[in-house]
Every structure is written in C-alpha cells, then in structure tokens.
C-alpha cells in the first residue's frame, strides 16, 4: 500500500495535477477465451478494488491480428483508450516514435522495475532511447507441446516425451480415428508452430541468424530445410484438424479427440477452465521435449498520451498495479503465463508452470519473434504458412524458397 502511495505522489508530481479524481479507464485487449477472460478479470478486480478508479473493459475478440488494427487506428485516429495490450516488441514501435505513447520512465523508476523485472530483456523490449514505454505483465513462451492423455490412452500408446516420439506415435492415433496434431487454421498459429520447431529442433543460432540477422542464406540453407520437412510432417498430422481458433484446437485435446498441439503456454488456461490437471489429464513438453529453451515474449500494456489529467494520473496507478506482486500472481495463475518478476511466490503454480519457471531461471531463453521482426514480415510469413498448411501441392522446398525471399526483404 505504501508503494502505491509513492506512485500516487510520483504521478501527480509528474503531471501538474491536483488530487487524482476517481475516473474510468478504458483498457483494450484481445483476451477473450475462457482462461484469458478469467485472467483479465483479475486485473480489473485489482484496479477497481485497490484504487478509486474503475476499469472499463474494451475486449476485442478474435486474435491480435483482428484487435491490433482497431487499437492502432484509434490511437492514430486521435481517440486513444487509456491503456492497451500489445505483444511487446516491435508492434507498437512506430506509435512510440510518433510520440503517441506515454513515457512511463518515472513510474518505472519509482517502482524499481529495473530491479524486479526478470529476465531484463522484457524491459528492454519496452525501452526506446532510454525511456520506458510499456508495462510488461507476463511472459509467454510459445515452445510447448501439449499432449492429451486421454487420446493416447484410446490409441493404446504411451504419452510421448519428445517430438520424435510424438511423430512416431502419430500413425497409432490416426488408426484409432484421432487427429495426431490439432492445429487451428490461422496464420499466427501455423507460423507459431513453425517457429517453435525451428527453435526446438535446431541449434539456437539458426533461429537468431534467420530472424535477428535476417540472413536469407541461412533461411534457404539445409538446416531450415529440415524444419520445412518437419512442418510437412506436421501438415500431414494436422490434415484432419478442421478448427479455426486455437482454443478449439485445445478443446480437441481436452475432449481426447486429438493427440497434441503446439501452442503457447496460454493453452494451459483452457485446460484449467475445463478442470483438467497437468500431469494427469494432460502433459506438457517445453521446447517440444527436445531442448530446454523458451522464448520470452509476452504481453505488455502501453498507455497512450491523454489530455485528461485525472486519467493520466490513473494510468500511472494502473501501470504500477500491474506489476505489483499480488496482481502478478493472481493474473498469471489464471492466464497460465509466467510472472515478469522473479520475486513472487508461485507455489500455487501447476506442474507445467513450474517447468516453465525452471527453464526461465536455469536454462536458455531467446527473444520472441515479436521483438525481432516487424509486424509486416510476420504477416507475410503467416500468409505463407496458411497457404502451406492448407495446400499440400505446395512442397516444402517451394515454401522454403519463398520463406527465404521474405527474410531477404525483411527489415
């Protein structure tokens, strides 16, 4: 509570305001699945309860690809919300450069974000020219293979412990009339799975060469060719997965209709909402069980510059609140993601989250794709993957060629 008061003074000192009057903050985000909605309501509850302000929920359904345009056009259109979710990294880069996002440096200093945020790369992704523009709220890692115990039981094979076993078990599942790999037919999911394979099945420097250095030769090389072969296998395994949304795909696991799904740790929220227990009803393999590695992308809140002094003060309170220990714990437990600070007690966390924490603390982490490539390039790769996964006449070789072209043009 004292910390909060520091913030109150910090923000009001910052902005020529008298006392902060109770106000309403509109917060936009794209968290609309069951687990996500439960998590976001933790944020709302904390904000409504601990401050005199009210959280006005501006959920935009669909995926980030649907929601981001709405957010961006509202900010650039001069009708900004009070706070908005982005995957931190390059998505909001230009908005920050154009001076449309509020500088949070003072709040970050007062709260000591530099010391508590772990890994520090998260805060780096919020930083531009030494100033901090966003409040990271969670760490999401994509590199998980989720497995349905029920499906493997039906097929009569043991639950795989790594990717190669998973591939080997696929025919048994097919025979049992199940779908080996559940995958929603949306570009971001397919690109996500592709990147995961690239990280988990190859040495990490290949991933960095392709996405960080934009090395087109590496993208066209024999290492990445292996990944396209793996993607080809994944395509065959997912051939009968006729769902769109990621949580419908997860639901195929929950109901035992599909064996596995490559999806970020947010899938955990869906298992939790369905009352399933990690290690008993489902299993999770970080780094596809091949390699102990996670990327540290995540969600962050950005605060557009507002004219209203009351709202500006309230923004500061919200930013501070989002990183407070209690909120971090409550939010991330529901979301299935990891907290951005290493000093909170996560004893309530389940098996999978603990595995993730362990990797985060002891093993290798890599920057997530959102931090390395622009939204434009992401979109191009998504378009390619959507086509690749839907059209079996597009060979792995041809797809790789086009992939290398996209990387060559990337900034």
């Amino acid at each position: 509570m004292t910390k909060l008061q520091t913030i109150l003074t910090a923000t009001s000192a910052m902005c020529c305001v008298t006392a902060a009057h109770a106000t309403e903050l509109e917060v936009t985000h794209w968290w609309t699945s069951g687990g996500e909605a439960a998590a976001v309501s933790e944020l709302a509850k904390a904000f409504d309860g601990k401050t005199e302000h009210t959280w006005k929920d501006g959920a935009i359904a669909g995926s980030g690809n649907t929601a981001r345009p709405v957010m961006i056009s509202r900010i650039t259109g001069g009708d900004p919300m009070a706070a908005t979710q982005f995957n931190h990294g390059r998505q909001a880069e230009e908005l920050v450069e154009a001076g449309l996002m509020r500088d949070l440096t003072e709040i970050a200093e007062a709260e000591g974000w530099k010391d508590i945020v772990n890994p520090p790369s998260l805060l780096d992704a919020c930083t531009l020219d030494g100033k901090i523009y966003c409040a990271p709220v969670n760490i999401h890692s994509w590199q998980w293979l989720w497995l349905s115990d029920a499906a493997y039981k039906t097929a009569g094979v043991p639950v795989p412990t790594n990717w190669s076993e998973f591939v080997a078990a696929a025919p048994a599942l097919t025979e049992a009339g199940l779908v080996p790999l559940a995958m929603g037919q949306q570009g971001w999911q397919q690109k996500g799975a592709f990147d995961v394979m690239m990280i988990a099945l190859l040495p990490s420097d290949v991933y960095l060469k392709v996405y960080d250095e934009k090395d087109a030769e590496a993208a066209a090389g024999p290492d990445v060719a292996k990944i396209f072969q793996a993607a080809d296998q994944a395509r065959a395994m997912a051939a009968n997965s006729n769902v769109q949304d990621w949580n419908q795909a997860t639901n195929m696991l929950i109901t035992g209709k599909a064996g596995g799904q490559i999806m970020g740790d947010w899938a955990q929220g869906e298992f939790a909402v369905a009352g399933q227990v990690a290690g008993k009803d489902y299993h999770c393999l970080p780094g596809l069980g091949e390699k102990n590695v996670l990327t540290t992308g995540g969600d962050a809140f950005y605060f557009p510059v507002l004219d209203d002094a009351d709202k500006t003060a309230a923004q500061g309170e919200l930013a501070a609140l989002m990183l407070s220990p209690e909120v971090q714990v409550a939010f991330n437990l529901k979301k299935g993601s990891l907290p951005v600070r290493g000093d909170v007690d996560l004893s309530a966390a389940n098996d999978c989250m603990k595995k993730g924490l362990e990797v985060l603390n002891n093993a290798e982490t890599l920057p997530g794709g959102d931090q390395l490539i622009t939204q434009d390039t992401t979109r191009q790769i998504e378009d390619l993957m959507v086509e690749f996964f839907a059209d079996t006449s597009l060979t792995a070789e041809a797809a790789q060629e086009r992939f290398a072209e996209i990387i060559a043009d990337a900034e």
Partner: protein
Amino acid sequence: MAASRPNRLFRNLSAKIAAIPMILTALVVFVGGTVWTVAYSFTSSKMLPKWKFVGLDQYERLWETRRWMVSIENLMIYGICMLIFSFVIGFILAALMDQKIRFESTFRTIILYPYALSFIVTGLVWQWVLNPEFGVQHILRSLGWESFNFDPLYNADIAIFGVLIAGLWQGTGLIMVLMLAGLRGIDQEIWKATRVDGIPAWKTYIFIVIPMMRPVFITTLVLVAAAIVKVYDLIVAQTGGGPGIATEMPAKYVYDYMFGGQNLGQGFAASTMMLLAVLIVVVPWAYMEFGSKKRG
C-alpha cells in the same frame, strides 16, 4: 430553364448551397481521399503515413505476392460467376413472376428477403449450412449417399464457390425485383403484337424485351458491380479467407496489410490496384451514360 436572371454566379444560389455537402463529398472525400491514397502508395509508410518516396517498390512486392494473385483470381471468379448467375437467374425468375401468377408477392417476398440481411449474417448462416460435419454433406451422407462430397469450406479447390452460393442467395432477389420492374415497364402492346406475328416468347424476350430494358440492365449492373468490388464482410464471416488462402479477396488483403500488417504503403498500393481495375470497367460505361448530353 425558363427563368433567366442577370448574374450567372448567383443563379440558382439555393441549389448551389444545397449541393455543398455533395460537392464536398465529391471533392474532398472521393477525389481528395483517392489522390491521397494513390500518392502514399508510392511511399514506404509502415504504421503511420510518412512521405518517404520509394517509387514502385510497393507495387513490385504486391505483384510478387502470391496471396495477392490468389485474391485477384478469386475476385475474377467470384465477380464473373456472380454477374452471370445473378443476372440469368434473376431474369428468369422475373420472367416467371411476370406470367400473371398467383401468390406473386409471396414468392417475391421469399426470394428478396436475404437481401435485407447483412453479409455477416449471410456468411455465418452459410458457414453453418455448409459445415461438413453437421450441414448438407452430413445430411446427404446419412441419407445413404455415402460418397457425397461437398465441403466447400474445407476444400480449397471449391471454397470460392461456397462463398458464391452465399453471395447469390443474398443478392439475386434484388436483381429479380429490378428486372421484374423493368418487365412491367414494357408496353403490353408489344406482347400483343409479337403474338399476332407468331413470334415465340423466348425470342421476344431475347430480341425485343431485353434490348428495351437496357437502362434497367445498366442500373442493375452498377449496383451489383459496386457490391462485388466491396466484398469483404462475407469473406470475414464465412471463411476468414480460408481454407489456407483459398478465398482471400483484394479488399481483405488491403485491410490486413493496412492495419494488421502495419504496412500502410502496401495496403495503399493494393487499394490503388483495385481502383484501377474498377476504372477500367467503369470509365467506358460512364462515358456512355454521362458523356452524351441528354435531359433525363
């Protein structure tokens, strides 16, 4: 005009004032907006418009992008099929309705009602009806026709026709009504005369009635063509562009890159190409319609 006044500028002043919204819309939004978009399509604008000239780069990338090519192809297939089917079906239905039948208004009401529904609603309904696990395919298979295969929403080769079915369902009624109105405008004497001459009905339709209905056809074409170019909601609701990229459309490409991909320049270039395509079709028509001075 009968009344003549001395000052030309102030002649019809009220009319000119009344037309200000139209003039502003025409000049600022339609002309101004279009010029602005075309101009910025030559820049490397990403999330925000920036005047950084890059020549034809955006266009080169556009025409090298497979998704764009597929979108164009889809628009052609959808557009041509939509025009042909909706005109043929619409006209035949109108001709049937014109046979002095009973329950005409009931039939008309049934055939026109989908036109009142939005593309979002249309798309969602047909998504449901065509759903292979529950819809038409499932029903026909459970009736014993095991080999029946019609899953346009999952099969990339025929997906665009799934969209076409929905589009026709929504739009044919309007065309029928317009055609019917056109038929009703035909002088009854013509029918009497052709009957006396013993000309078969179908010949009368093709060689006499349809040429007489030219204005109706043109207006209808205007309405339908405008709707086809703008097709966006239907795709978003029914297929989301899938499976894969099989039902992508140019309008969706523009939206996705302009906002989702945060590449305004690319979106502007794509929309400029759409505009160009429209102009190629519309200019000759406009020239015919408005080029010759005539008093309505």
